């Protein structure tokens, strides 16, 4: 019990910190991240530039802060879109069953089988690389995940007596789904969303690293990594800082998701008691 709570609180603290930093950077960063000062490139950490400056003389702290907004936005929008569509599909599959369920679940299998990176490259090839296309690609890989979770959880709720009571009261499948099923599968959906947040942040970093995500001058942890790669021997710390940020963000959301699942999963509660 106690150990699991540690997961939850550590995750919540990391996520909270990350969100706070991102919000602050919307209004204030120590330096303007679009301001290039070539004369001050590769400065070591100092009281004015806590983590030094990069190859173009930009303040690294400011870059990392501004990039966190990018990561969180992409994760939020992509998981939001993919999660909503996936959950809706899963609920529909569960409510109507029969061929609807078969169709949705086989499409989900197809989605799982399709490499997300390939999809992102296809989008970039067709519409050009952009943050929007990266979001679409990440949203796409989330659809089948949420469809499966929603259907599985909804199928369990459908067997419960209060749904039967709703049917007895003459309610249709749509009304039952909205009023009775959805609220009762909210917990697993939220848990899944938190975990997928971590995956999405990692995916955004990977896509930006490959040049398929955020385009200059928009700061992004993934692109900072890519740019630092050529300077590995000259300034290894420029690769380490964004790497640490990615680790912290992924770890934070991962721990939070795990912690939430442990708190909300009745099977685990009973096993502990």
């Amino acid at each position, binding site marked *: 019990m106690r150990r699991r709570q540690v997961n939850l609180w550590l995750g919540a603290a990391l996520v909270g910190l990350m969100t706070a930093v991102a919000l602050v950077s919307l209004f204030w960063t120590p330096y303007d991240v679009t301001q290039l000062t070539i004369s001050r490139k590769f400065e070591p950490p100092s009281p004015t530039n806590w983590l030094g400056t990069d190859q173009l003389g930009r303040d690294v702290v400011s870059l990392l802060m501004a990039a966190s907004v990018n990561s969180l936005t992409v994760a939020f929008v992509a998981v939001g879109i993919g999660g909503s569509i996936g959950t809706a599909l899963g609920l529909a599959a569960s409510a109507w069953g029969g061929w609807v369920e078969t169709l949705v679940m086989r499409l989900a299998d197809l989605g799982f089988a399709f490499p997300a990176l390939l999809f992102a490259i296809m989008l970039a090839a067709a519409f050009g690389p952009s943050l929007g296309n990266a979001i679409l690609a990440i949203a796409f890989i989330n659809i089948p995940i949420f469809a499966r979770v929603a259907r599985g959880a909804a199928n369990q709720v459908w067997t419960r*007596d209060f749904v039967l009571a*709703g049917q007895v009261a003459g309610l249709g499948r749509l009304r039952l789904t909205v*009023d009775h099923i959805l609220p009762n599968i909210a917990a697993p959906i939220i848990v899944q969303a938190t975990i997928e947040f971590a995956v999405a942040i990692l995916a955004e970093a990977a896509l930006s690293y490959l040049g398929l995500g955020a385009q200059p001058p928009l700061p992004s942890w993934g692109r900072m990594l890519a740019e630092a790669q050529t300077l590995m021997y000259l300034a290894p710390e420029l690769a380490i800082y964004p790497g640490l940020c990615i680790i912290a963000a992924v770890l934070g959301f991962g721990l939070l998701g795990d912690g939430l699942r442990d708190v909300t999963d009745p099977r685990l509660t009973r096993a502990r008691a």
Partner: protein
Amino acid sequence: MIEAKEITVRFGAAAALRDVSLDLAPGRRLGVVGESGCGKSMLGLALMGMLPDAARLSGSLSVDGKEMAMASDRDWRALRARRVAMIFQEPLAALNPLRRVGETVMEPLRRHLGLDRDAARARALDLFEETGIQDPAAKLRQYPHELSGGQRQRVLIALALACDPGLLIADEPTTALDAHVGLRITDLLVRLARDRGMALMFISHDLAAVARTAEDLVVMYGGEIVERGATAEVLADPQHPYTQGLLAARPPLAAGHLRERLAVIPGTVPGLMHLPEGCRFSGRCAVEMAHCATVRPLERATGPFRSAACHLIGGER
């Protein structure tokens, strides 16, 4: 109100109900008794058009003169709540844990009767008062886990009555409750049926609760009705060997009898696949004859509004 003629419900080759006929007139209260697995709950579901997908229904089932045996789910939905309603054994399980009970009761009022929020709330308040819920205004805003078992069952009754149904099916409504709370619920059901001129089908294995509730009684065994008649007459003078066994198996309460062994019906109810073709009760019956297992006894009238399905009845020994 509802007339069922020889309805049979099959799951593949197994018959969960075989040639069940019954007639429920407005204002009549019918008790249905039998052991677990005798098909009494299946009968309730069949009358609501809520059989599982795998079930196949045959026979004739008319609601308000309209044939419903082959009706679509959409047609049934129009009848549910408005004409037939149902309450269940486990009131806690039958309420959505995440909704205030007032919302739950208001839902059919708004969906089916088209009332707006305020009108639906006023109506729900009336229903809570009618079903004897104390402090109804406050209860509307509470969640199921905040109510006692009896109060929850009253909420479910209020929900079932919301659209003024002609028939209320109560499937073991008192089984999960304390005895004295159960008694108050049965009395409430009788009063509501009387006041509203509503038919009541009271499904139970508790003979005392049925005796208190129902004017008419059907006894079910193995998916068939084995005996029927006025409740008082059936209980006083059971004619089918199964009914006799059921009544004999009641625990005596009088002092001096408490240490006696209970009478039992030997054996257990066979699974649906293993029911005998003839009389369903053969194999467990104390007065069984050679042809009972293979020849099916038909229901025979034994008096006005009384009948039983047994080869021993009607002089055919």
